[in-house]
């Protein structure tokens, strides 16, 4: 105690700072940094969880590159991204743009759009799975049948299943994006709009020349945030295809589901770890690319 009392105010601060950070530093080291290194290490090894860990160099990566399932999965993951991100961005912007101009029951409308964000992905995956069932069970096909339109095979079709699984993921995320867009719209100074009105600029020109350019930080945030979400899609796919995860014929399988199956169904830890490293690199590349493109322009 005397030792502490002899310190200067500045030295005391340093002691307090490190005391406050002690537990978190241990946490981040043991639960974040060490496992990251370990995952990379395991990706160069062959290990089935029970036997010995043997060093195999780049074997896991070469297997991965020559695995047709991996390329199918890789393609699927990017389809989720390239379909989900623009669709949700456009829908949420259109809704936010109009909702921002609506005053009557504004709070109520906003609540309706936001509600799905508060649901659990697993629960909603099961609800949508029920919607997609063939007649006489599924809601969508029943509705189609009642107006005489032929049945659509949703989850059993190799072409329709992926968009069908993507739909609830987009749906659940809209509310968040709308709220963020509205906050972005409100942060645009009103004087810009007033100046445009005095100059007699058309609504479209205002949208393209004022609103969208000034919303760029918001758009960057939403694009990066939703891209990361779609690249990591898992809950919806797993729960809507539990009888044949990632099916039919791997047509809906994203990278995270492949990782899960390789690690916890086949117990091929080395191979799964190599896939996680690929996921990490993809996420890193996509976020950096988007930040670059959207920031510079």
């Amino acid at each position, binding site marked *: 105690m005397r030792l502490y009392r002899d310190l200067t105010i500045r030295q005391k601060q340093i002691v307090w700072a490190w005391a406050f950070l002690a537990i*978190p530093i241990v946490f981040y080291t043991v639960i974040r940094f*060490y496992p990251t290194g370990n995952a990379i290490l395991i990706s160069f090894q062959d290990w089935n969880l029970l036997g010995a860990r043997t060093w195999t160099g780049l074997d896991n990566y070469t297997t991965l590159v020559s695995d047709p399932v991996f390329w199918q999965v890789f393609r699927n993951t990017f389809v989720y991204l390239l379909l989900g991100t623009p669709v949700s961005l456009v829908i949420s912007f259109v809704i936010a743009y109009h909702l921002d101009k609506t005053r009557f029951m504004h709070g109520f409308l906003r609540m309706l759009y936001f509600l799905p964000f508060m*649901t659990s992905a697993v629960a909603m995956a099961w609800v949508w799975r029920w919607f997609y069932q063939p007649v006489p*069970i599924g809601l969508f096909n029943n509705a189609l049948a009642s107006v005489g339109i032929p049945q659509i095979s949703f989850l059993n079709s190799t072409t329709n299943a992926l968009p069908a699984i993507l739909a609830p993921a987009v749906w659940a995320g809209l509310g968040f994006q709308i709220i963020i867009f509205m906050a972005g719209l409100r942060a645009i100074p009103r004087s810009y709009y007033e100046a445009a009105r005095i100059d007699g600029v058309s609504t479209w020109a205002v949208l393209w020349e004022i609103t969208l350019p000034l919303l760029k930080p918001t758009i960057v945030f939403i694009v990066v945030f939703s891209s990361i979400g779609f690249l990591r899609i898992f809950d919806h796919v797993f729960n809507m295809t539990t009888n044949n995860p990632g099916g039919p014929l791997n047509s809906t399988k994203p990278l995270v589901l492949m990782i899960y199956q390789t690690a916890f169904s086949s117990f091929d830890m080395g191979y799964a770890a190599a896939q996680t490293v690929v996921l990490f690199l993809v996420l890193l590349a996509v976020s950096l690319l988007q930040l670059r493109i959207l920031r510079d322009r």
Partner: protein
Amino acid sequence: MAVAEELRPTSDALLKSKAQRRPANLGQFVRWGLLFAGGILMVMPIAYMISTSLKWPHEIYNLKLIPDEPTIENYTYVLEDGRFFWWFVNSLVIATVTTVSNVLFDSLVGYTLCKFRFPGRYIVFIAILSTLMIPTEMLVIPWYLMSQQFGWLDTYWGIMFPGLMTAFGTFLMKQFFETVPDDFIEAARIDGLNELQIWWTVAMPLVKPALAALAIFVFLGNWTAFIWPLIVTNSVEMYTLPVGLSSFGDEADVAWELIMTGAAISTLPTLVVFLIFQRFIIRGVVMAGLKG
């Protein structure tokens, strides 16, 4: 607080003046109608989930939103078997403990990085921030091995440990502590409070809205978390609600009214909380989204 919040009066005032100048024309009416229709469409899946959970099996195939003979039979059946009760308790305990831990540690670290000047501060900040780039999925295999080694598989601790602190929360709190004037902290120091007391009694009460926003995010995230609890649990009584519902859905097969009941049980708590604290939660989400 957020810029958006400060500008809200201006924009509301403008909307009002505009509305007064130009009474509802056809365009505005159509806009409102379409927005309303879209909003109803958005909540349809939730409405059908609740509706079906209140139907008898023979009624689930019709499209009616209001059941002819509503029943709570499905709820008594699902809850009677006891599993959902345990899954509910597990989820509640895990989400609550994780939320408390995040609120305490993320704000402590955020506060330290924001208000203290010490060698290594920048490195610690960058190190924590860099973990944002590491996807959870990359860590599940090493976490699983750790859990296996230390006997954490199938325990509450095993489910909780990866999420006890988050870089997102730390960054969020650091941003908000910037708004706390240094003078307050200096004054408290002169009054003879120690640093722990200053953090807890001076700084923390000033960032309450941010703490609430963080708590909402962490709670919701852990309440709905799926992949890690799925991996780390293996006995039925240790499942969380999402993991339990997933296995229950498989087992119930075509008994959709029971699956919808299970889905409703795991969704309604967060929906009810949202409906009560709606304005507050939306503001919190915006704050967390824009600052984080």
